[in-house]
C-alpha cells in the first residue's frame, strides 16, 4: 500500500494510537471535543512535533520530510480563515501560488460550486461558503491526501450537507480524505472507515457497518401509543423492552424479531398508533462504549438520494 501512515503518538492528548489509511478512502477520526482528533491530524500535517513514535505520510517521515509531505497534501485546518479583503478567486490563487504547481482557480470554484461568489470578498461570505472556499484551497495543489479538520462544525444543516457534497466529490477524484468530526452522522455518511477516539485512544475502529454491528445494540422497533392490551402482550413476550412516554422500544435480535412483534401486536387485539424501525447509529455505539453522549448531536435526519420521480404520460 502506498498511501500508508501510522501514528504511535505519545502525547498527553494522543495516547499511543496506531492506524493506517488506505489510498482512495475516506477515513474519519470521530470523537468528542478534546479527544485528540486535531492533535492527531496536525501531527500528520507536519504542524506539530510528535513526542515519540513513528508517523509516515505517503511513505515519508513527518519529522524529516515535512517539506516534501506539505507539497503533496492539502489541509483544511480547524477554524479556517482566508484573507478577508481578497476575493474567493484571489484567495484560491494566493494559496495556489504557495505551490510549484497548482490547479486553475476557476476549476476549483466550479468544483465547490461557488461560481456566483467568485469575486466576492472572503469576509462577506457565510460560514458555509467560507468552508467551501477552504475545501477548494485544500485541493489547490492537487494533493494526494486531503485533511479536513472539522469541516462542518458550526454550520447549519443545509450548509453542512453542501460541504458533504463537496467532500463526496473528492472521493470520485481518487483522493484520500482524512476527516475529523464530532458529528456521528457525518462520519457515517461520508467515511469508508472510522476510528472512534476518546481520551487520546481508539475505542472502536472499522467501517461504520462493522462498528455498528460489533458495538451497536441492533435495530430497534418503536411502537407508539400502545393501549394496555398491546402493552401487556409485548411485555409478556419481551420482558426487557423499554417503556418510554407511551412508547415501547424492543430490540430486534434477529431477522424474525420484527414479524414476531407484528404478530404479537395483531394477536393482542389492542390499539397502537405506529410502528417504527430504527437502525442503530454510531451515536448509539459511542453511547454504549463510553456511557456518554457526543456533543452537537445532529437532530436533522440524513436524506438519501432523492428518489427518481416516475414519469407520467407518454412513454
Amino acid at each position, binding site marked *: 500500500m502506498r498511501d500508508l501512515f501510522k501514528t504511535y503518538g505519545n502525547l498527553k492528548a494522543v495516547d499511543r494510537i496506531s492506524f493506517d489509511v488506505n489510498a482512495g478512502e475516506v477515513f474519519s477520526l470521530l470523537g468528542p471535543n478534546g479527544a485528540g482528533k486535531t492533535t492527531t491530524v*496536525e501531527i500528520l*500535517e*507536519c*504542524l*506539530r*512535533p510528535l513526542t515519540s513514535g513513528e508517523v509516515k505520510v505517503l511513505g515519508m517521515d513527518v519529522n524529516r520530510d515535512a*517539506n516534501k509531505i*506539505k*507539497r503533496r*497534501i492539502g*489541509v483544511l*485546518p*480547524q*477554524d*479556517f*480563515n*482566508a*484573507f*478577508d*479583503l*481578497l476575493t474567493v478567486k*484571489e484567495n484560491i*490563487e*494566493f*494559496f495556489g*501560488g*504557495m*505551490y*510549484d504547481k497548482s490547479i486553475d482557480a476557476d476549476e476549483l470554484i466550479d468544483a465547490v460550486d461557488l461560481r456566483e461568489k467568485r469575486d466576492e*470578498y472572503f469576509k462577506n461570505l457565510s460560514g458555509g461558503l467560507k468552508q467551501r472556499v477552504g475545501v477548494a*484551497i485544500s485541493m489547490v*495543489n492537487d494533493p494526494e491526501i486531503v485533511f479536513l479538520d472539522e469541516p462542518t462544525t458550526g454550520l447549519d444543516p443545509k450548509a453542512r450537507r453542501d460541504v458533504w457534497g463537496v467532500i463526496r466529490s473528492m472521493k470520485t477524484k481518487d483522493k484520500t480524505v482524512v476527516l475529523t468530526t464530532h458529528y456521528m452522522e457525518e462520519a457515517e455518511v461520508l467515511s469508508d472507515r472510522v476510528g472512534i477516539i476518546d481520551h487520546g485512544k481508539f475505542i472502536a475502529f472499522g467501517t461504520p457497518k462493522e462498528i455498528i454491528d460489533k458495538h451497536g445494540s441492533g435495530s430497534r422497533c418503536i411502537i407508539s401509543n400502545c393501549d394496555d392490551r398491546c402493552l401487556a402482550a409485548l411485555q409478556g413476550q419481551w420482558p426487557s423492552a423499554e417503556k418510554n412516554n407511551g412508547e415501547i422500544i424492543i430490540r430486534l435480535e434477529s431477522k424474525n424479531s420484527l414479524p414476531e412483534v407484528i404478530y404479537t401486536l395483531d394477536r393482542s387485539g389492542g390499539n397502537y398508533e405506529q410502528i417504527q424501525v430504527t437502525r442503530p447509529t454510531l451515536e448509539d455505539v459511542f453511547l454504549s462504549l463510553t456511557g456518554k453522549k457526543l456533543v452537537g448531536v445532529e437532530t436533522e435526519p440524513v436524506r438519501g438520494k432523492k428518489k427518481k420521480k416516475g414519469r407520467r404520460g407518454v412513454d
Partner: protein
Amino acid sequence: MANRIIVALKGEAKGFYRNKSTMFWTVAFPLLLILLFGAIFSASGGTYDLYVQDLSDSQASHQFLEAVNLTGSVNLKYIDRQANLDQYIKDNSLSAVLVVPTNFQMAFVPGAGNNTTQLTMRMDPSQSSSNVVFSIVSAVANQANLALAQGSNVITMGRADITSAGFNYIDFFIPGVIALTTMTTTIFWMVSVMTRYRNNGIFKKLTTTPITRMEWLTSQILWQLFVVFLSIAVIMVVGMLAFNTHMSLTPVAIITIVLSSALFSSMGMIIARFIKEEEAASAAANAITFPMMFLAGIFFPLSMFPSWLAAVANVLPLTYVGNALRDSMVYDNIASATNNMLVVAGFTVVLFIAGILFSKWKTE
C-alpha cells in the same frame, strides 16, 4: 521561493489598497504632523507688524524709521500723530507700539544742549513677537547712536539664522517625521498582521503550505518598505510644496530607512510574540512608540533636553534613525550620518535575530 514571496507580497498589497482607512492614515498621519508643526513654527520666520506713532515727524525720525524698515524684519504701520494712543492700542489690540518723541530731531543736531532722546516701546512682554521687535528697534537705535558718535557707520546689522544655509524648524522636523513614520508604519503593521493571522488561523493555514517563515517575513518586510517609501515620498513632496524645504534622499538615508524598517518590524514581531490579543498588542506598541516619539528628539532637538533626558534618548534606536536622516538629508554631514546609521544597523541585527528566535511559526 521568489515566486512565493511575490505572491504573498501581492496579497498584502491588495488587502492594503482595499482597506481604505489604513491606507489613508498611513499617509495622513505624517502629513498632519508636518502641516501642524510646520504651521506653528514657521511663524517665527516671517515679519512682524510694528505700529509707530511718529510725534517728531522730522527728517531724523524719517531716516531712523527707514533704517528700521530696511532690516526687512518689521512691517511699519503708522498711527496718526493726533490719535489718542491708549485708546488706539485698546481698539486695535496691539502688542507693540513705538513712540518717537517730539524732541527726536533735536538729539541729532550737533552742539545742541540736550543730546538725548527717549524712544518708547509700548509692548506686551508676554508676546514673544514684541520682544523680537524690541530687539530689532534697539539694534537700529544702537547703530544710530554709533553713527552719531563717530560720524560713520562702524557696525551694520543684518538678520540671519543660526545655521548658515538658512535651515529652520521644518528642515529639522521633516527627517524626524520620516523616522517616526518608518517606526509607526512597520511596528503597527507587524503587530496587527501577526496577531490577526495567528488568531484567525491564517498562519496555521500558511504553515500547511510549503512557504517558510523566512519567505513570509521577507515578503512582509518588502511590502513594508514599499509603504514606508510611499509615505516618505508624500512627506517630501508636501514639505517642498508647503514649506519650500530642500532635502534629498541620499544613499545613507535610504540605507537607514531600510535598516530601521527591519528594526521596527522585528520589534513588532517581538511584541506580537508575547501579547496574543490584537488590541492589547497594539496598545503595547503604542506604549513603546509614543514615549519614544517624544524622547528621541523628533519634535525638539536633543540639545533642548535636560541632560538626564538626553541620556535616555541615547539608548533609543529612534534617536539614531532621526539623527542619521537629519545629518544626511539636511545638514549634509555624511560622517555623522554614517556613524548614526551604523548604530541603527547594530540595533537592527540584535532585534532581527531576537525577533526570529522569539516568533514561533510552529505550534507546540
